[in-house]
């Protein structure tokens, strides 16, 4: 399965002796060149931009090289709520995606083993949304949750939603959109680890007096941790930088702006490149920090 590339098979801790041969270096060369050109160069440029100052008496959007470290203090002071919101929404979306994906992946990967056709069909359904543009699907959800939609009026009649309530433009709709859009990134890695789960371990658990629940908790979950860790990373990282779902033209409003939205408006509308860059560098650094802490805690360093 192609998804195996996403899920790591770290349950086998094979120690393959690493030999540094010329062949390996030659094979690595294109990759290294790619990284240098398309990652390192923009990164350096980004960091440099984040330290620029406006050109004196210049036009809007004109900046010059400087070492204006205050840019960082300014953006943190101005936009820390957006950072909090970004990580909070991303965390919530990751949590909901996990709660939805795990049973789904378990069903496809373990329970449906006897019916390979069903397995293939369900996997296709998981990936199917990718065939339609991300923006279109999000817009479709905006329609479905709009104030004059059947859903909202139904919720209002059931008094789940107050008479003057909305679905769009709320934290709920943003988290919903994030969860929905990144769900396959959670499902597929978990599926790949569960698909390889040896059910004989589950039988051994049952033989050793563990109830199905205990066996699930003590055997299945630990054995599927590599998939869970890669799934949560693949969901959390893009979700915390996302600026589509939270934008007012999609599922969000001015009250739900995440860092991504701020970066977008600073860059595109306000042409404040140094602040946009400083925000980007900060976002990247914070994500790296969170991921490093998370991976360390979950004890799956060999994943990275």
């Amino acid at each position, binding site marked *: 399965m192609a998804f195996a590339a996403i899920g790591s098979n770290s*349950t*086998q*801790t094979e120690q393959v002796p690493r030999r540094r041969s010329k062949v390996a270096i030659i094979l690595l060369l294109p990759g290294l060149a790619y990284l240098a050109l398309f990652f390192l160069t923009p990164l350096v440029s980004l960091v440099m931009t984040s330290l620029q100052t406006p050109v004196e008496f210049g036009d809007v959007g004109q900046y010059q090289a400087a070492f204006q470290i205050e840019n960082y203090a300014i953006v943190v002071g101005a936009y820390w709520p957006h950072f909090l919101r970004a990580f909070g929404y991303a965390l919530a979306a990751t949590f909901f995606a996990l709660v939805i994906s795990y049973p789904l992946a378990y069903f496809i990967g373990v329970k449906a083993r006897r019916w390979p056709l069903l397995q293939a069909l369900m996997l296709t359904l998981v990936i199917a949304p990718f065939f339609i543009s991300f923006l279109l699907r999000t817009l479709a959800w905006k329609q479905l949750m709009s104030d004059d939609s059947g859903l909202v009026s139904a919720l209002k009649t059931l008094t789940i939603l107050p008479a003057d309530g909305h679905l769009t433009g709320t934290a709920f709709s943003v988290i919903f959109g994030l969860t929905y859009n990144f769900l396959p990134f959670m499902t597929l890695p978990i599926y790949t680890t569960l698909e390889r789960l*040896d059910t*004989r*371990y589950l*039988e*051994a*658990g*049952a*033989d*050793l*007096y*563990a*109830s*199905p629940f*205990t*066996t699930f908790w*003590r*055997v299945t979950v*630990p*054995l599927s941790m590599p998939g869970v860790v890669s799934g949560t990373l693949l969901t959390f990282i893009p979700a915390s930088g996302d600026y589509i779902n939270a934008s007012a033209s999609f599922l969000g409003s001015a009250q739900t702006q995440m860092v991504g939205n701020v970066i977008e408006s600073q860059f595109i509308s306000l042409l404040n490149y140094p602040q946009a860059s400083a925000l980007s560098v900060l976002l990247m650094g914070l994500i790296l920090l969170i991921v490093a802490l998370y991976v360390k805690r979950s004890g799956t360093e060999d994943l990275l």
Partner: protein
Amino acid sequence: MAQSDFAEAGADLELVGITKRFPGFTAIDELDLLIPAGSFFALLGPSGCGKTTTLRLVAGLEEPTSGRILIGGKDVTGTKSFKRPVNTVFQSYALFPHMSVLENVAFGLRRRGISDAAGKAHEALRLVELDHLAARKPQQLSGGQQQRVALARAVVNRPALLLLDEPLGALDLKLRRQMQLELKSIQSEVGLTFLHVTHDQEEAMTMADTVAVMNKGRIEQMGAPEELYELPKTAFVANFLGQSNLFTGDVTSSEKASIIVDVGGVKIEVPTSRAQRHTGEVTIGVRPEKLMLYTSAPTATPGVNVLGPGRVTDVSFSGVSTQYLVAVPGLGVITVFAQNMEFGPVAHIGEEIWMSWKVEHGFGLADEPGIVPRFSADTDTATIATQRRHQLLAEIEEG
């Protein structure tokens, strides 16, 4: 079932009319079996005959198509696996890869809330001489070490019924002997019931109180090891447990004490009590070590069957004994095991030789004559004997 403590004694196991059908394949066929509490029961049989399936049914990992399973007199047919007072040493070990050896062994104890799980797990690991590797992960152990961990993980629970699926298969001879002794002492100390599947007949015969030979999902014969060895009732058992010389012929006379069978012109006497069939075409046999070798024709004595002359076609020396293959016209090739009481073999290839055995050592089998062989042709001496005889008769008729 109370699970909070170790079993005080073994429980008996009863299978009543158990059938297990997989789609398009009957793995277990109407199996009835009673294993008394506290006994060491060995299940022997060729690969694919349904031994593992039987254990899985008892452990509750597989549901029988029909029939009932009783453990300690209690019907557990519908009881979930984790509630049965049974532990299994799996043929594939199935050690949890994400836990250390110690955690693996303590797993069952922890689930039952037994105090000092770690201490008891260490004790079990000492028993299999692996305590020094307690902190390792299963993948960091050799195959034989993993097998011993699997053994410790099941034994530590002291279940009323322990199922062992070839638990010593990956061990070298010395370690296997040692583990056999350990197992036997654990079993007899607490009086637990062991159901032990093995490919090693010697292991089955030395350790078990009762041995059952299984074939194609049925039990062919069961009994005490000596009984099973000395008086096999079918060609399958005669050849699966040790080796046998089998002959097929018609019964010419049937007395109260013995029957006489005409095998290619040679009259062979078999005690009536040791023969399963007394008329028509029958298959009879004798174990190779019961045969005596003579370099000249022995005088006919009552109570002794004599064969010969035959020509020695192969001699293989194996230390304590020597195996001779003797071709006897009209009878085929006969195997003889002789103790090496002299230096070297007493007969050589090409020599003419006679053989004899006491009538009481012969046995008669229950197999229907001329039925399809139930054992692969290369090992089934009965079929070979029948085929040879038919060939020979055809030749005689032609000539």
